[in-house]
């Protein structure tokens, strides 16, 4: 009796939950309304079966509950009934399968007028490539991937030279234009999924997979990796911006081709030195940084990272948050660099500097810090050396107080939350693994111990209490 009532309650509750649920598909932003239709058909068929079977179950349990004055029926088989049930089930299944296969046929066959772009996945970033003027993507090979050629394009292949490279987690597409996405992975399995577009596909190293869609709604949509790709899988996000043809063309015009990236960079050390004069007021004449001025060490930080940050400062991506007072100062100062050329010049000069800041201790626990640092090490390297391939800056050149402040800023979304900050959202997620100040101190202390002269420095200026000297082998 009770069991029957509960089953009816569960059926009703399931229906109520279903119709009242605010958790439902995100509004569709592509041509794949046919997928939604198939889902609806499936919902109706399965929903009816769910209700009927369980109501029948509840009724049977109630009606034929134990009665000592009754006996069960004896009916081993009922051919007619079984045949009918088989038929009805087959019809129901066919009603779902037929539209499903029809729509799959559409998904498999890409329209001939579709544009093409390539999505490249790696742990734990996205980048993209467009075929350029000739409409043909150049050949690629994993062996060719390097810091100068992150896409691994064959420089001998003429088709590749005009390929347009998007060094960013964010891709743009024009509205109402079918687009075929070719997919390639540099390392492990990934998955290109945009919930609003409904379609998704794995990226597999060693082969090229594809999907296609026509974006139908302007907006900026999140790309999620949905195939487990290691520790930081959950931070592997990108964006896709659907915009008007005009805006798309403006965006496209600003992108660089493979041929352009092959040009050796031009810079002028003399001009760079002159420009650096403004920087040196805070960052020191040798780029060694200055805690009193809240200035991090610049020397020995790779140029690609500082270039990205300088542009972020200039564009208000970094240093625009109201609680980021030191960032605001830097944003103002970054305006003194008039253009990309000026940035290249000053960075070229900084690359010649060898200043080293005192890496004052923060009193953390090295053993605990080492455990925590494991999460950092995948991108920033086992020795905090930073990795271009993972867009991760060098940590050991940075002073502990600076590291701690930036980690705190990330945790509080003071840094990294700007939609144009490509890798900031990743650091926001990762920084939250350090759940209290002690954890921050521990991991910063460990990074400091990795720095040249870090833990082995006997001189401990300023505040902070002395650490026990700890031997850290360089190769660790």
């Amino acid at each position, binding site marked *: 009796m009770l069991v029957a009532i509960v089953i009816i309650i569960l059926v009703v509750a399931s229906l109520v939950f279903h119709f009242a*649920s605010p958790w*439902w598909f995100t509004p569709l932003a592509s041509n794949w309304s046919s997928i939604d239709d198939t889902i609806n058909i499936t919902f109706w068929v399965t929903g009816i*079966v769910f209700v009927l079977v369980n109501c029948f179950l509840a009724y049977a349990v109630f009606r034929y509950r134990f009665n000592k*004055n009754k006996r069960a029926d004896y009916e081993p088989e009922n051919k007619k009934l079984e045949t009918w049930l088989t038929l009805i089930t087959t019809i129901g299944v066919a009603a779902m399968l037929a539209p*499903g296969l029809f729509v799959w046929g559409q998904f498999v066959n890409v329209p001939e007028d579709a544009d093409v772009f390539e999505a490249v996945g790696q742990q734990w970033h996205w980048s993209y490539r467009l075929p350029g003027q000739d409409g043909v993507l150049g050949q690629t090979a994993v062996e060719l991937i390097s810091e100068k050629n992150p896409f691994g394009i064959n420089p001998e292949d003429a088709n590749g030279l005009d390929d347009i490279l998007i060094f960013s987690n964010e891709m743009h597409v024009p509205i109402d234009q079918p687009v075929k996405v070719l997919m390639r992975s540099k390392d492990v399995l990934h998955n290109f999924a945009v919930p609003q577009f409904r379609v998704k596909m794995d990226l597999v190293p060693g082969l090229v997979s594809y999907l296609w869609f026509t974006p139908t709604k302007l907006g900026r949509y999140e790309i999620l990796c949905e195939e487990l790709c290691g*520790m930081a899988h959950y931070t592997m996000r990108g964006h896709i911006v659907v915009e008007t043809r005009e805006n798309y063309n403006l965006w496209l015009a600003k992108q660089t081709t493979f041929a352009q990236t092959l040009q050796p960079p031009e810079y002028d050390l003399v001009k760079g030195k002159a420009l650096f004069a403004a920087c040196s007021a805070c960052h020191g004449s040798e780029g060694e940084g200055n805690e009193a001025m809240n200035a991090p060490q610049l020397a020995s930080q790779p140029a690609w990272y500082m270039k990205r940050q300088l542009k972020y400062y200039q564009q208000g991506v970094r240093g625009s948050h109201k609680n980021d007072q030191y960032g605001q100062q830097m944003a103002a100062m970054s305006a003194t660099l008039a253009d990309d050329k000026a940035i290249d010049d000053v960075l070229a000069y900084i690359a010649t500097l060898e200043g080293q800041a005192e890496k004052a201790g923060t009193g953390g626990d090295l053993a605990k810090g080492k455990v925590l640092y494991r999460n950092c090490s995948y991108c920033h390297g086992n020795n905090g050396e930073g990795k271009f391939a993972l867009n991760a800056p060098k940590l050991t050149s940075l002073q502990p107080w600076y590291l701690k402040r930036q980690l705190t800023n990330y945790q509080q979304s003071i840094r990294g939350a700007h939609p144009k900050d490509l890798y900031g959202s990743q650091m926001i997620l990762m920084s939250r693994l350090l759940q209290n100040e002690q954890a921050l101190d521990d991991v910063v202390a460990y990074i400091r111990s990795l720095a040249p002269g870090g833990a082995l420095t006997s001189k401990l200026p300023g505040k902070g209490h002395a650490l026990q000297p700890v031997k850290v082998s360089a190769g660790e």
Partner: protein
Amino acid sequence: MTSYTAIADQVDDSPHPGSFFTKYIWSQDHKVIAIQYSITAIGVGLVALVLSGLMRLQLGFPDTFSFIDPAAYLQFVTMHGMIMVIYLLTALLLGGFGNYLIPLMVGARDMVFPFLNMLSYWTYLLAVLVLLASFFVTGGPTGAGWTLYPPQTILPGTPGNDGGIILMLASLAIFIIAFTMGGLNYVTTILQARAKGMTLMRMPLTIWGIFIATILGLLAFPALLVSAIMMVLDKVIGTSFFMPALLSLGESLDYTGGSPVLFQHLFWFFGHPEVYIVALPAFGMVSDVLATHARKNIFGYRMMVWAIVAIGGLSFIVWAHHMYVSGMNPYFGFFFATTTLIIAVPTALKVYNWVLTLWRGNIHMTVPMMFAIGFIFTFTHGGLTGLFLGNVVVDLPLSDTYFVVAHFHMVMGVSPIMVLFAAIYHWYPKITGRFLHTGLGKAHFWFTFLGTYAIYLPMHYLGFLGVPRRYFAMGPTEFIPDSAQVLNANITISAIIVGVVQLIFIYNVIWSLFKGKKAGDNPWDATTLEWQTQTTPPGHGNWGKNLPVVYRWAYDYSVPGVKADFIPQNMPDSEVEKLAAEPDLPRGDNVVPLKEKPAGEDKS
């Protein structure tokens, strides 16, 4: 009369138990081995249960537990999944119940290879120990997800990519050896050692389910074995079976030419039949529980048998429905979607037949019956959501989301476990001679049944929303409303409650062993042979001097013209005639109160 063999006719000359040691430890008695299997499986299952609790804590309350970092989270997920699927469900259903029930239900004295049977358990135990050892190696157990997809499984960036993964693969290989020894035994015993008169079409559905599941296992596990070996070679000596030319965290590696998709094909060639290796024994056992406690024959027995056989066969040609978005040739989608939806037909028929078995029955709402009815509900739910994922184009938005997690937990987590509980409450009196406590059993049922639905119903909707599985945390994600976190917290609370409630069950099992109500030989008035033994628990050799002879199918409940509402399989017609009732009892809907109490129903 079909083939019964000399083996079944043998006088009981198997080595009789001697000391405690040979009786309970190095025992070759299938019943002792079954209990060893069961206790080990439930023990390691509890570890997996705790892991799921830890993982739910992170999902329900992110940024709260500092000891759970992304690596640890992935390790919990991976070990939870692998333990539950292989080391708990497969081992408990086949190693536990298969071992206990096969000889008893087919009327044999033991498995045909008792020594091999014993070896199977000890090898299984070794596999469990190797698996658990991976918690204690540097880097911890593997965190590659239970599917162990290369390349990431063996590369830095994935937790446990050194010792952890090697121990995992070694443990799987050892498990497969153990399973093969057990499986060959089960198949041979069913084919060769059935009692006189036990034709195949008289076998209880439990045996049919276990029989076909074992055949599936024998055919499917080798695919996992070879992929485990190939992956170990890739990892240890640098072959490239599954490894194409690739980078790892920016560094170039020496691999070239391998295919990650090949692994997925091998894995799911094993992995999909594995679903039915778990499901078919459950289908069989629940059929017998339903028939016994509804006092009615299973409806459409022959169709049930053929459905089991058809599902078993079809399960080998649907595997790539796990790979619709894997990057394999998308044209495969047409084929695998079609086969997958075809398999829904025999499966649906089984559900109908269970419900129709209850129809016009006389349902005793015992604890096993409650779990069996709970199973029909959860399996219907889980089966229907499978139609979403099997239909290739509907899989596109739902693949790799929480919808998948909710679906497979309903269909191959909760449902088989409902049956396992039904089976334990049902057969415990035979195994121990005592009933489990009914009140505790009912409390256990309600919390487990309602609690698991409270976990998994909402989880489907996280999937519709697009929340990906295997994410340590969502963080700020534009399309996901804050309310999703409320849902997640509620799911976690339900999960913790369900987890803790299992202590009631454990307590009940231990308490009832000593204090439970005495049961007698056939407390449920069941027809099948295991209830017709002369002693309970059955002694070594099961049947005393004479093996049973089978005269009828397994479902002669409430046969017209017979006073008792069940006729045991080993009761000859001559004796049945003596039971003829005068007049027959009212049936179905025509209730006529009788003054005389019908026999056989006073024990319920």
